[in-house]
């Protein structure tokens, strides 16, 4: 083939890879370039694309993804660089000092519109029946940089539509061949689910022999796909995305605590999507967590309002009455008070509970053998953790101190087993016992024996336990999706959760009634909100000392001494204004080095948010 000579500049280092041989003098850590007249300074090694993004001018793109390698094949992010005769793809061009870049010149604009026109050559115009509408990059860019009159008068190439690949539904006609799915399967999960088959405009993505995708991260394909080629078989046609209201929160289904958007509408949840958090989950989440949104909509088994046993009968009571009963009992119990906390409680609940126990001289524990039931084998090196509780680390940081804390951090199995059993056995008879969330099966014989011994047993949780017949007081708790608060993930990242739904019935946050109980007994416990409670009590925990709720922002903070990959004492991310994935990128660094380099907002949120 005849190629215009492409001259490699002598000794030019390869872009994107470490130059062989360290330079004798370390170059400055940043470079400064001008993009359409705006001066921008970014870390050395960042691309022109990332620099443009840092000043809020994200170039149009299909193939670029912040957590994948850069193939530069969609040709949408073209830019003009002074001194370079050809237009360059900004995603593959390393930013250099003094570069003069233009995205807004007429030449670039025409070229990008031209590339977009090609994208539409064989793209079916089935937007009215396409589920990607509202978060489709093709639609978005047509409105932003296209808006030409079509000169296309030839038939389009037909490919397979609505091909079921398990959790993913494939429409090969809509595909723009950006290869994000191919790269995700190769680089992130290592499962190589998709490949591009055939050549030219007959190229399409396919799984081998049309086999369904079984990998536990398959639904990320639906997020990754910038168009309607790969959609979630679960979410398809359930709701137009522009009716969805995304809430930035955290997935509570395992101790990894992936940052997510909970997309709600009509007072129910329609889906979870990963939210970019370089310190926790980058741009991904597992299918197990993602599909757990269904349980958030489920009212079965919930406790709607406080209930008490009076004269052998169970009666509904007001919160004031319920708190009053508990206060009365605690006052009469002297120091004979114990609480069995649960690793699904938020930091605020645990802080308030510990403060109450400290004030009343009671004891608190959260480690039970029954906890094993909550653990399963589904763990891998990417995101999923064996510990399915979102706040085990928070419980360790808050309820344990000194050697006990150190031992628990260093020996995960000890925190599940023996201490809890010994604690149960040592409980004195005739005291007040408050149990959070634990059900009979998990409590086991030792737990049930402790309950039998207590003179007054209160239960607090979202769901009615099987042993509720033995409760003296039943207090409904708001569940994760209904409340504000924070979780600390396995690695010590403290992240804020936000309510996506209203509490079921008149369920409340446990920290709120704990605070009321404390005040009735003459002790200051927490504050009027989760944030105030956190801020007031955080310093009592070794790990949370110095952290403030307002500082958690969108992506959270590390507990003292923690930090992914041993980056201790790392400066926290600035308090997030808005979702993590629309923040500037120049400072973001991935937890695990992604082949394509870190840097940009993920595509998944732009459509849904921008459309509203």
């Amino acid at each position: 083939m005849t190629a215009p000579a492409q001259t490699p500049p002598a000794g030019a280092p390869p872009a994107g890879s470490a130059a062989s041989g360290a330079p004798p003098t370390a170059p400055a850590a940043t470079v400064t370039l001008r993009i359409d007249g705006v001066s921008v300074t970014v870390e050395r090694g960042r691309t022109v694309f990332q620099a443009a993004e840092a000043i809020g001018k994200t170039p149009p793109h299909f193939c670029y993804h912040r957590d994948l390698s850069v193939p530069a094949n969609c040709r949408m992010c073209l830019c003009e660089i002074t001194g370079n005769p050809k237009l360059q793809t900004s995603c593959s061009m390393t930013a250099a000092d003094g570069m003069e870049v233009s995205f807004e010149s007429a030449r670039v604009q025409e070229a990008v519109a031209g590339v977009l026109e090609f994208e539409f050559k064989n793209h079916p115009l089935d937007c009215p029946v396409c589920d990607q509408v509202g978060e489709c990059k093709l639609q978005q860019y047509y409105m932003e940089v296209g808006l030409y009159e079509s000169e296309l008068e030839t038939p389009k190439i037909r490919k397979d539509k609505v091909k079921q690949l398990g959790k993913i539904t494939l429409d090969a006609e809509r595909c723009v061949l950006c290869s994000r799915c191919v790269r995700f399967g190769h680089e992130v999960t290592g499962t190589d689910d998709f490949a591009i088959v055939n050549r030219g405009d007959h190229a399409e993505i396919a799984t081998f022999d049309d086999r369904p995708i079984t990998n536990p991260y398959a639904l990320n394909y639906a997020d990754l796909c910038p168009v309607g080629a790969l959609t979630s078989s679960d979410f398809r046609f359930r709701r137009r995305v522009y009716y969805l209201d995304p809430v930035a929160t955290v997935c509570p289904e395992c101790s990894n605590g992936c940052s997510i958007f909970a997309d709600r509408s009509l007072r129910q949840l329609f889906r979870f999507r990963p939210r970019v958090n370089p310190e926790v989950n980058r741009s991904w989440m597992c299918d197990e967590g993602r599909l757990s949104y269904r349980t958030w909509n489920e009212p079965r088994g919930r406790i709607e309002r406080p209930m008490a046993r009076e004269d052998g009968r169970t009666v509904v009571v007001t919160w004031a009455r319920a708190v009053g009963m508990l206060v009365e009992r605690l006052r009469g119990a002297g120091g004979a008070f114990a609480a069995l906390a649960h690793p699904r409680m938020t930091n605020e609940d645990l802080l308030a509970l510990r403060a109450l126990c400290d004030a009343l001289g009671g004891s608190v524990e959260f480690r039970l053998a029954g906890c094993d039931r909550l653990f399963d084998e589904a763990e891998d090196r990417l995101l999923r953790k064996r510990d399915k509780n979102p706040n085990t680390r928070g419980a360790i940081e808050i309820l344990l101190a000194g050697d006990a804390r150190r031992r628990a951090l260093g020996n995960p199995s000890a925190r599940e087993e023996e201490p809890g059993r010994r604690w149960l056995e040592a409980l004195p008879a005739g005291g007040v016992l408050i149990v959070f969330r634990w059900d009979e099966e998990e409590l086991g014989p030792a737990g049930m024996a402790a309950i039998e011994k207590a003179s007054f047993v209160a239960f607090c949780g979202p769901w009615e336990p099987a042993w509720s017949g033995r409760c003296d007081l039943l207090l409904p708790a708001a569940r994760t999706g209904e409340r504000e608060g924070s979780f600390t993930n396995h690695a010590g990242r403290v992240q804020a959760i936000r309510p996506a739904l209203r509490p079921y019935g008149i369920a409340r946050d446990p920290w709120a009634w704990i605070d009321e109980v404390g005040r009735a007994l003459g002790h200051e416990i927490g504050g009027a909100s989760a944030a105030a409670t956190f801020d007031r009590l955080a310093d009592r925990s070794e790990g949370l000392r110095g952290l403030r709720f307002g500082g958690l922002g969108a992506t959270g903070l590390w507990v003292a001494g923690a930090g992914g990959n041993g980056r201790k004492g790392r400066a926290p991310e600035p308090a997030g204004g808005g979702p993590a994935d629309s923040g500037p990128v120049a400072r973001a660094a991935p937890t695990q080095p992604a082949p394509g380099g870190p840097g940009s907002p993920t595509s998944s949120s732009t459509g849904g948010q921008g459309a509203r």
Partner: protein
Amino acid sequence: MADHHRILLERLAAEGSHTLDAYERTGGYQASRKALGMAPDAIIDEVKRSGLRGRGGAGFPTGTKWGFIQRDGPRPTYLVHNADESEPGTFKDRLLLERDPHAVIDGMICSAVAIGCRRMFTYIRGEYAYAAARFAAATDEAYAKGYLGTGIFGSSYDLEHVVHVGAGAYICGEETGLLESLEGKKGFPRIKPPFPAVVGLFGSPTVVNNTETLAAVPWILVNGGDAYRAIGTERSPGTKLFSVSGPVRRPGVYEVDLGYPMSRFLEEECGGLLDGVTLKGVIPGGSSVPIMTPDEVAKANLDYESIRDNGSLLGSGGFIVCGDNVPAAEALLNLMRFYAHESCGQCTPCREGCGWLEDVADRLLDAAGDPDDLHLVRRLSENMMGKTICALADGAAMPALALVTKYRAEFEPLLAERRVRRAPARHGLVGIGGRSGATAARPAGAVA
């Protein structure tokens, strides 16, 4: 007929020219022996001095390319011999592979020594079964003689040679597409930089050279770079093979001193056009270069600069002569069908643009073109050129643009009245649907 230098085709006439014995009788493998006694940089300097330029199409200076290689780095270096000669109209390498394979291997050894390569690869296109067999047999002969393998020519230099046959994809002749294919992947060209000289085969510094380039190296090492430079023109030194096809009396492969007048070449070497055929144009460098009109042919010489100044590119030397019996629209469809079929599909402008150009050429040939179609071809071509990872899109767009520009008068009668007026849509999407509802009429799976 001019007395051209015979550097590449000298030995081909002899019986059994493909054997090692025949090659050695004419002084073969002296270059390799000489190279083994030279410092690598001295070999590179000699080739730089010769001014030899890559004969695969791009014309990049060979010695300079070798000079980019970091020999003492942490990774091995590789030489890849690109024998994936797939450019339509080009069949010069095939002749060398079939009739003088040892000259190529000789050149490869010189190149390998210059860049410190211990394992070199040959990538032959799948359709060249005979050439591949000949070349593999020549490699076996060289191994048997100790010219390849452990301690070549009795020296301490080990050099392995792997002959790999491709599966027949045009894009695998693009050097980085070839590297991907050689690594066992789909032949998707890579982004440059990094260039193969820095990150090439298996991530190592790699030189990719064309067959003809490598075949010229032994002569340069034996006779000296200055002797080679004395042939041809100042900026296009040496000789070049041209594979001539079309309605001429003597089609075939010719070795020509660069700078030779094109019209004279056409008349004398090629014997002029067949009776009754007049010249419509010449595609001088394989199908990817713009066609030249008879006027341009009359002014041009066969060298990189002169052809460039006369509206085309020297390219691979696939010299396609077009007579007046070939309608320009047919040529356009023939070419665009090829590129639409061979585009790898990686970059958007090429993947969709080549197919679109084919569609337009198709209706032009049916005399059913839209009044705007010539403008459309121009616009699509311009949107394709320089917008992709490799040069395939340019290779499709340049000839399309040249055909509709230089032979516009021939296309104009093919433009039909617009049959259905598009709705005056502000946003073009409203008007899409094609003439007479053609979109809906195609069955699923039909090829546009």
